[in-house]
């Protein structure tokens, strides 16, 4: 039989690549089917393991126990104020580091002397564990609200600066040079080209570091806290309320997911040219 390129016999007679082809297509319905599978299977497994008689509830509470704990936390234990104070701490620490990291990242990514002064230093500090700063933070900042914010700041700021500097450095040189040959001043090149061009990447960096800020919540609420989700998890540990630990962890995950989606929504609204369907 003559064989021509493109007429190679395939398993499927239609010739359309299946979903298991490398980077193959997946329809919307199929996507949601798989996504639901990915989310529900662990839940089912959890249910199965926790309901088997051999597993003590202290080690592994079932989904229903966790749900009931969520309700009692909400009704008797001020769940909403715990969520509120934790969201406040994370957001404040995160916003503080964003406000400082943004101009610094812009400067590091634009001017080589600033990069030379700040980047090696930042690289060094970011490997220091945020948890280890707790005694220092208590000594310097005290045990007020600001200390929790400070911990979250330390956990996110240095990574954020470096990532933002990298975002700024990725702006194509041709974009900057084109502006210069149109008569742009240095300030105009930074403001109208570099910053504008880097904006989508910067927002993505904010989204990613927001997630990291949440991972520092429990650490932050180690410092003389009396409320908050992280604090509640720590307290539940002392009383062996495993179900409450579950609720707390799941809540942090859920809030993080919601915030992530909000950032993605903002990205679509703010940068429509990146989300065009061709």
């Amino acid at each position, binding site marked *: 039989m003559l064989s021509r390129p493109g007429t190679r016999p395939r398993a499927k007679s239609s010739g359309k690549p299946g979903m298991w082809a490398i980077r193959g297509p997946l329809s919307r319905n199929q996507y949601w089917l798989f996504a639901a599978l990915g989310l529900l299977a662990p839940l089912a497994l959890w249910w199965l393991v926790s309901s088997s008689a051999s597993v003590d509830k202290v080690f592994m509470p079932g989904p229903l126990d966790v749900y009931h704990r969520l309700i009692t936390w909400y009704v008797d234990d001020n769940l909403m104020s715990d969520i509120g104070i934790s969201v406040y701490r994370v957001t404040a620490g995160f916003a503080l580091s964003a406000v400082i990291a943004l101009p610094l990242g812009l400067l590091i990514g634009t001017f080589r002397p600033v990069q030379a002064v700040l980047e090696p230093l930042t690289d060094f500090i970011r490997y220091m564990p945020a948890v280890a700063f707790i005694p220092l933070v208590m000594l310097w900042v005290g045990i007020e609200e600001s200390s929790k914010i400070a911990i979250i700041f330390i956990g996110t700021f240095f990574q954020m600066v470096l990532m933002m500097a990298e975002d700024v450095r990725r702006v194509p040189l041709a*974009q900057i*040079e084109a502006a210069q*040959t149109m008569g742009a001043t240095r300030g105009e090149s930074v403001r109208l080209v570099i910053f504008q061009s880097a904006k989508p990447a910067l927002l993505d960096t904010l989204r990613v570091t927001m997630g990291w800020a949440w991972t520092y919540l429990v650490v932050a609420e180690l410092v003389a806290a009396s409320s908050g989700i992280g604090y509640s998890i720590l307290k539940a540990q002392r009383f062996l309320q495993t179900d409450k630990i579950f609720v707390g962890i799941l809540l942090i995950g859920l809030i993080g997911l919601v915030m992530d989606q909000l950032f993605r929504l903002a990205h679509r609204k703010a940068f*429509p040219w990146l989300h065009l369907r061709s």
Partner: protein
Amino acid sequence: MPKISIQQVGKVFGEGGHRVEALKDISLDIADNEFVTFVGASGCGKSTLLRIIGGLEYHTSGEVLANGQPVAGPGADRAMVFQHYSLYPWLRVMENIKFSRRLKHGRENLSSADVEAASGRADALLSLMGLNAAVDAYPNQLSGGMQQRVAIARALMGRPEILLMDEPFGALDAQTREVMHDLILHVHRLEKPTLAFVTHDVEEAIYLADRVVLMAPRPGRIDTIYPVPLPAEREQDMKHTPEFLRLKKEILARIRETSGMKTDQGMLDQLNMQEAV
């Protein structure tokens, strides 16, 4: 007075042991409204020379004059068109073309009549470049050829007297490139900028230029300057005339000679011999 005057220009990259002489003793005058193309083997410094004229890089010796003024940094009198990635993806086509209007330089000393004229100019450039249908598109919705039309229109917006083009059609397919050639010749006739154009495509270099400057590498220098023996009004058919083909052959041969890669045939022979053994 020449529009661009390059006098004994040299350019050295790096220091000490990493010192590379990118350009050596370049002298060239480009007349007002002249169209000059630069060709040469890779590493001959043709792009570097163009960027020095544009003020995006600095020569380490000699002098470059544009409009009789020494070049010290980029300026709106010398607009540049790049091979790619120079459009602003967050701006629609019309906003890209009008970008220079946002700059202080473009706003200074303007009467309201000037502003109106500028608006008319943007529309005129849009039509000239055949971009009317794309006015509200974002750059990433356009083909490579259309993107370069926008880049050219944007560069022309500020009425630069000198237009520098660094392999502007290098990423386009052959058919699109031919269309762009006639378009840029049309622009040259209409707007009368002085045009310095770097390319690796010899046919393109001859078809567009009044003079083709052939540069040679190690160190980058001007090897030969070829006046193009074609009528000022170019047509695609001229590419098949004997004088065009003869010049193309001559330039290609000279590029091969100056590229320093004479070993190609020798290497092949050697490989063949090894295989025979």
